[in-house]
């Protein structure tokens, strides 16, 4: 096969991806993407149903949510039955969550953890297309010119992005450290262990064990939450007493392994800086080898 032909096909592919990018960004700027056109309201958890020990962790914690329909002002009560957007893994009566649905189709409602979430600009597909164009250009450059261009193409942009985001990341980590230090601690109990076993086409079996902790905050809020981590031997954790640390402004940010989280937060900035240095060094090596 003639390589020059492949340039033509690549150009064709880039053209198609370019159209996707242009159309996607155009739609986003015009405000007509699905995400932008969806109706977003603030919902309130009215009831948290107790999980059954040995039950399923899929679908999150069973809750009843109410929200006010903006067009009619009517109160609507719904549950998180079936595919309903983000899984609710921490719930308490009175918690506010986001409810959104396509305009004119309130029955297709979805939940989001953050009631303030704007829902994005609907740029998923155009950004994916843009990324593919970038990957394609790096591959073409490293084949057509020389392999160090792969180092420059991959590590250069990532190093730049890393440098731009580093200050924000440092601020985030500091904020997280302060947040961890200011956490209140209360006793909690593992009230259920949820188990899901699934198998794939190759006969592989995967087992997901999710402990559920219940605790009452100092403000008297009863919280029920899935524990993604921080519980040793999760399968045998049913009934275990634990200490729960939670930020007072948002009990959903609770942790069970408080000390480990603090250690991790201390090393976070160092890991990020080392990664950034390695990526930058790789880009520099690429330039030197040209």
């Amino acid at each position, binding site marked *: 096969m003639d390589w020059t032909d*492949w340039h033509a096909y690549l150009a*064709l592919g880039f053209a198609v991806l370019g159209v996707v990018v242009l159309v996607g960004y155009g739609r986003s700027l015009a405000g007509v993407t699905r995400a932008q056109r969806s109706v977003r309201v603030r919902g309130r958890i009215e009831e948290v149903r107790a999980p*059954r020990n040995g*039950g399923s962790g*899929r679908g999150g914690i069973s809750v009843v949510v109410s929200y006010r329909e903006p067009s009619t002002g009517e109160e609507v009560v719904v549950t998180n039955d079936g595919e309903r957007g983000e899984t609710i893994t921490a719930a308490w009566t009175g918690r506010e969550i986001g409810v959104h649905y396509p305009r004119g189709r309130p029955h297709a409602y979805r939940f989001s953890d953050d009631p303030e979430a704007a829902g994005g600009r609907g740029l998923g597909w155009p950004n994916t297309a843009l990324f593919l164009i970038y990957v394609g250009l790096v591959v073409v450059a490293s084949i057509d010119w020389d392999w160090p261009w792969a180092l420059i193409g991959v590590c250069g942009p990532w190093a730049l992005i890393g440098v731009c985001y580093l200050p924000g990341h440092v601020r985030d980590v500091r904020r997280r450290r302060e947040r961890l230090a200011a956490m209140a601690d209360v006793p909690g109990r593992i009230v259920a262990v949820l188990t899901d076993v699934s198998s794939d086409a190759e006969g592989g079996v995967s087992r997901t064990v999710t402990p559920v902790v219940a605790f009452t905050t100092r403000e008297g809020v009863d919280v029920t939450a899935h524990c993604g981590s921080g519980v040793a031997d999760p399968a045998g954790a049913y009934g275990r007493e634990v200490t729960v640390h939670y930020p007072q402004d948002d009990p959903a940010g609770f942790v069970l392994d408080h000390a480990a989280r603090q250690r991790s937060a201390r090393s976070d900035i160092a890991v990020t800086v080392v990664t950034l240095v390695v990526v930058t060094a790789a880009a520099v090596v690429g330039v030197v080898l040209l």
Partner: protein
Amino acid sequence: MTTTTVAPPTGATPVDLARGFLTGGVIGVSLTAFIVGCALGKPPLIVGALALLAAYGLLFFLAGAPRRAREAALAPRTALALIEGMEAKQGEETDVPVRFDLTVAPEDASAFRIRISEGVHVSELPDYRPGRVLVVQYPPDRPWRLRIVKRPTPAWEERAAGAAIDSAPGPAAGDRAEGCAWGFVTLLGLLLGAAAVVLFFRAELFDRDADAQPAPPEQSVSVTSSSTSTSVVTTSATGTVSFGPGRSMLDRGALREAVESLTEGGDGKQALTVVVREQLLTVVFSPAGVDAPAFDPRSLPFDRVPALVEEAGTTLGVDSPQTWQLSADRVTGSLTIRVSVTGAGGSASLEADGQGVVVRRSPAR
């Protein structure tokens, strides 16, 4: 209570079948074109195959968009349902496929029976015993897409707890299955599409297969045959003349004629070796541009050949000679002719020079 049996889902309609056939055909054509393109090294074919698949996928998506929008805009209907029967197939997974037989009792329509399959977590199976009232949801125009609401709102939960539903008469309508016909036409389309591409490119594919076999060194082959059953096969590397029954290379003028038939054109083709048998002449030509000890096959002493064969068969002690072979080459420098004879008494040979004069004899042992 008014009861009815929900209109059973119709099987595959002719439009469904046509769509299935077209889909199968496009998949067959594009996949086969992709493979053929790779095999023949034709990038346009590969790209065309991918483009066809992408274009059809896009067309399929766009064609179905209005229907999907119409279906999505329709709010599902919520109703109570009575479990008439259930059958769970437990395995090692915690989500168990359960086949439910339900009587659905919508508020504003007749009750109907339906059979559905739904996954239920193994810990919840005891909640779904026959006789229990559930909350279900279904698109009003497609009741076979009914699903059980596992987390109903408090209002519906209360209604289900206090409800009594009479069984609707069966039989229950089953899941919508497009059936064997749809699968068959799709497979048929796929096979026909694949066959069409293979047939279209059969010449290139099969020529390629032939080319792929170990190629002999010749650049050209010509085969002729005459009414006397003489066949001549000439290539750039060898020439062969074989006589049919009744003719011999020892016949007067036959060998000369055979050699000349291989060296037609008078371009002075040089030979490395000439081998003659009773009815077969083989000449191995010297490759062009190669400095090898070759000779002009037309320079052989044709008139002496019958005498040499006769002498080898009669004077070297071979009783009843059955086969003979003459070979000529210049391996030792000058043209050497060897005649060997095989018979009941073994084999014997003699050597002659370029003029046909015997220079060495090796009698039978």
